[in-house]
């Protein structure tokens, strides 16, 4: 296929619109992000405005932050071609140890958190050892782990509930503090929102400059402006909502932890060598090994990392519920896995993004929350969640089998922080109308 000229004029182009939030040649690029927006709007209308009330969105963040934290680790495990079923049990096991450490051994809350992370690391090292160095499939190792750590929780805690102190509860129940003059909003939250908008603007400017240095064509300037305005607007509105809740509430601490992790892990998966190696091992293990990648170390890392994040999620949950119990974290693995797959990861590995998984997790969160607001019974909620998972992945698989660009494919194309603008090509470069997919060579005979 030859390289046709790409229009570099500054004029208005319909396809420029598409570059706003994605790079592909069709509306599918909005994919799961669009689905999230639609679901939010539907529930907002259906619940008579309850969905986007400050109290409710604060609740959503607090209630689902630990699932989303698990989804971050899970997507890396799934990209590498594995699965982790033990996350809920690891969370519960860590929770009971941390609770007991504070109650019986008088650990201060901060030392208990460190202890919890260390416990998670040790569990992860154990599971990673079996997966990476012995070669037992992660499904089996973590199925065993699911039993072992659940049993461990109930054995150590005597199947009882162990309360935790208020200092520790901050990571699950805490909010950004109040300070400064009273404008009727939470100043810290608004300040955070403004800070995020500034960072967005900075990234956009830097992204455009990088593109220029690379000699590639950037989208017209108005695209950048519109993008910053839309994204910045969403952030500011969200900040305002979080800042105007019931007195004493604001943006939750667990949300801050989640946001920091999302940024850190997006960076790790996109911009670091270990991130590249995870994608490489999941995409083609043999090719990766022949390129000098130590696949065992990669597998060990993703399994260990998952358990550390599980420990963190477990501690946040314990903090929020003010106690560690014998059935904490039951079924979490399924929520996390569902979030990852709705967010565009492939069962066969090599494909997936942190951002996609977070959006996938938010879809599930808003769905569950909205249905609960409407008073739908939990049995029906489960049925609906199951169908959403099946349909979301089914549509994507079907699209791919039809040779159409998949939502998954488009999402993974835009991995970097500079975001969608990067992808200047896939919008139909062939004037003749042939899609690039037709250039895929069939398997040739030997």
């Amino acid at each position, binding site marked *: *296929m*030859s*390289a*046709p000229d*790409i229009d570099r004029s500054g004029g208005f182009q319909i396809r420029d619109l598409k570059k706003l939030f994605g790079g592909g040649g069709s509306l599918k690029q909005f994919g799961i992000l669009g689905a999230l927006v639609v679901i939010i709007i539907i529930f907002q209308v259906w619940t008579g405005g309850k969905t986007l009330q400050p109290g409710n969105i604060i609740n959503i963040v607090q209630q689902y932050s630990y699932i989303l934290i698990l989804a971050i680790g899970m997507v890396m495990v799934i990209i590498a071609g594995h699965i982790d079923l033990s996350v809920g049990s690891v969370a519960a096991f860590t929770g009971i140890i941390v609770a007991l450490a504070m109650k019986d051994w008088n650990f201060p809350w901060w030392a208990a958190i460190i202890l919890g992370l260390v416990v998670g690391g040790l569990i992860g090292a154990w599971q990673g050892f079996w997966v990476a160095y012995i070669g037992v499939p992660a499904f089996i190792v973590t199925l065993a782990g699911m039993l072992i750590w659940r049993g461990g929780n109930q054995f150590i805690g005597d199947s009882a509930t162990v309360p935790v102190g208020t200092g520790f509860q901050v990571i699950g129940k805490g909010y950004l503090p109040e300070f400064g003059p009273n404008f009727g909003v939470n100043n810290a939250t608004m300040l955070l929102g403004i800070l995020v908008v500034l960072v967005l603007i900075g990234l956009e400017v830097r992204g455009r400059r*990088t593109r220029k*240095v*690379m*000699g*590639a064509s950037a989208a017209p300037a108005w695209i950048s402006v519109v993008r910053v305005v839309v994204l910045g607007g969403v952030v500011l509105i969200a900040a305002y909502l979080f800042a105007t809740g019931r007195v004493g509430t604001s943006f939750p601490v667990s949300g801050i932890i989640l946001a920091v992790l999302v940024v850190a892990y997006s960076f790790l998966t996109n*911009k*670091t*060598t*270990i*991130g*590249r*190696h995870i*994608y*490489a091992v999941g*995409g*083609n293990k*043999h*090719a*990766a*090994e*022949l*390129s*000098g990648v*130590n696949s065992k170390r990669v597998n060990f890392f993703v399994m260990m990392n998952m358990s550390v994040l599980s420990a963190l999620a477990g501690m946040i949950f314990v903090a929020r519920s003010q106690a560690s119990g014998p059935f904490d974290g039951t079924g979490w693995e399924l929520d996390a896995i569902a979030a990852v797959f709705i967010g565009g990861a492939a069962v066969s590995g*090599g*494909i997936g993004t942190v951002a996609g998984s977070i959006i996938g997790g938010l879809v599930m969160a808003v769905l569950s929350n909205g249905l609960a607001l409407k008073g739908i019974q939990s049995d029906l909620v489960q049925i609906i969640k199951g169908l959403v998972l099946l349909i979301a992945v089914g549509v994507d698989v079907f699209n791919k089998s039809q040779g159409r660009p998949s939502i998954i*494919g488009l999402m*993974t*194309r835009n991995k*970097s922080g500079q975001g969608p603008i*990067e*992808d*200047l*090509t896939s919008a139909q*470069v062939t004037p003749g109308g042939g899609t*690039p*997919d037709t*250039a*895929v*060579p*069939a398997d*040739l*005979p*030997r």
Partner: protein
Amino acid sequence: METGRSSHPTILEMQSITKEFPGVKALDSVSLTVKAREIHAICGENGAGKSTLMKVLSGVYPFGTYAGDIVYEGAVVRFRDIKQSEAAGIVIIHQELALIPELSITENIFLGNEPGRHGVINWVEAQRRAVELLARVGLDDDPDTQVKNIGVGKQQLVEIAKALNKNVKLLILDEPTAALNESDSQHLLDLILGLKGKGISSIMISHKLNEIEQIADQITIIRDGKSIETLDVKADGVDEDRIIRGMVGRTLGNRFPEHTATIGDVFFEVRNWTVQHPLTTERLVVKNSSFTVRRGEVVGLAGLMGAGRTELAMSIFGRSYGKFISGQVFKDGEEIKLRTVAEAIGHGIAYVSEDRKSLGLNLLDTIKRSVVSAKLGKISRGSVVNELAEAQVSEEYRKSLRIKTPTVEEGVTKLSGGNQQKVVLAKWMFTDPDLLILDEPTRGIDVGAKAEIYQIIRDLAAQGKGIIMISSELPELLGVSDRIYTIFEGKITNELLVAQADPETLMRSMTSSSQKVVA
């Protein structure tokens, strides 16, 4: 046709078969006539189109995806899948055996063809028939033995028993002896001859010309997707040299770059390299092989598929294949240890695999990510990848290697085979290697891209790098190399300067372990 009236009627006639893949004409008006009670050999270089032809015949490529007619037992047949061709008595036994290792011999023989009623298998009947079939192929193992517990030679016999159970009339064997030792091979050849006596015709694809000479009645030679000639072994007095001439007899043309090599000193040397098969401990895939590479030199490694060339290369490249037994590697006069791929890359060695799609590339990746993937550290600070450098580096390679793509952010699957190969080459050039091992660098790519790849290879040599080029295409080896080693059954059998080499000599050394003639 006159053959139709002879004592042996024609069982199969493939008329002007043409089969195209996107961008490649794999078969171009190929004709093949097989008589009843005949062993018909098909000879040709790798990639000549032999296997494609057999896939057309057996319905793997169904009717409608090829042009031309297949006349079988006097009528035009249109197979839509293997089931239909098998029902007609045409059974193909592939190079990679299609047996299930965990199942017993009996279970394998009747797989997909189980005796019994309403889906309930009659194991007594199956057992009885299995014993009978095994006797016919001369296998006296317990039919309850798991297939993984018998050797490759016996597995081959199980395949034939399986074919006999399907009332085979025309048996197609694709490289049946490639993985067998000498006595197993002989047993198999005798069996094929025996089947012929019982009225079963065979089509045999083989690189082992001595075997063909021994058992074939007719030989059809295929070259570049065309049927060149059909030889009658007895009437025409065919010998190996005659077959070789047919296989390679094409003009080299000027698709190879003009070059004057400036060859330096020996800088890379492998001594007494011996490697064991990863699973079968008694099998050595590389035996006591030694060779040298000079700076600025393209060293050809000529061998047919299965000769041990890839195994040799991969075992040197960080022990990526088999079990290391013995041998030493020297670079710039000092012995180096290459225990892992990372160590090999660190010592400036690059290996471009023959299997681009499963070993060379992550097909989910973009071009730019692929290009830097074998030495990410080079564009990273700490462990943070500099994406600007990544884009710049891959953009340079896109230009210098003329990779046809609108941008380096395109996924590698969207490229043609030739351009994918350029990406793989870029990936390894990026590692700043001193020695590049190129395994079938032009496999499955079209002629134009081939010429470009040849030019890239010569350019790399001109920069003073050493190149080992593995290929089974003799014109390519002769056109690009400065010196050529031949390899047969894991042993280096000959070494020739390109000026002294000709296709016949090479093919002879590639198909038999003749005396080593050191140039």
